[in-house]
């Protein structure tokens, strides 16, 4: 049942990305391009997505998920190198291609070979991240 719900969630997520135009890289780059022909669509997408989710978070108070034992615990609010450096690197890649992980998967079937290349490189980057992080941690200790 949880697996079926997950499939449904992925389907709805993908439809939302397609309808909102977020699988179109020029709309994403158009939003980031504040000095060009600025396209505000992404702000509407973000706003539209945050509203139901904000209601859902309120709803979690004092309740339990339908098919699980507990809601995810409040994350530790630690701001550090990993968060700042990671988000900066991610933003650079996002700007370069106009793709982030969700839309990359959602558009994979119609983005042509470039879409597969992007997802392949993204997975390679994901697999490389832990060892890169360990190396940076070691260097930080040595200094």
């Amino acid at each position: 049942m949880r697996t079926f719900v997950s499939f449904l969630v992925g389907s709805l997520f993908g439809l939302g990305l397609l309808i909102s135009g977020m699988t179109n890289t020029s709309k994403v780059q158009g939003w980031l391009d504040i000095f060009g022909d600025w396209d505000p669509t992404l702000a509407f997408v973000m706003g539209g997505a945050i509203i139901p989710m904000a209601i859902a978070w309120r709803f979690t108070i004092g309740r339990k998920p339908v098919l699980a034992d507990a809601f995810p615990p409040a994350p530790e609010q630690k701001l550090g190198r990993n968060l700042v450096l990671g988000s900066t690197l991610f933003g650079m890649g996002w700007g370069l291609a106009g793709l982030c992980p969700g839309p990359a998967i959602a558009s994979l079937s119609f983005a042509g070979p470039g879409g597969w290349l992007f997802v392949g490189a993204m997975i390679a980057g994901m697999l490389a991240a832990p060892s890169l992080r360990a190396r940076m941690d070691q260097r930080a200790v040595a200094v």
Partner: protein
Amino acid sequence: MPIDWIMGLVGGVLIGTAAAIFLLVNGRIMGASGIIGGLVDGSGRSDWQERAALIAGLFIVPGLAALAMGGSETNLTSNWAIIIAAGLLVGVGTRFANGCTSGHGVCGISRLSLRGIVATAFYIGAGGLTVVLFKHILGVI
């Protein structure tokens, strides 16, 4: 083009509704990079079915919808060097930051998570600077 804004809002509500169902029913955060990352690096082995099913829906349904609409534009660059660099940056960056637009942006900001807000500020800032640099100064995208 206001019709694009309305489609953006409608699509955004669908994305947020998907995230809300995942939270309220399965008790999980709908973060694309975390779901994919946990599947490819093995850290999410215990709940791989949920991850795989979500990715299957995310891959199949927009594909079918685009097919029904007679195709959908992606306008993805044909410069493979840019695509590879962008993919690597997105992969490494989202794993370092432990989240992307869906996890930090949609799920984080909506619970007023400081980490989500800071992450979003940094990736939007970096994305904006990258577009300015590579489009207007270097002219390669």
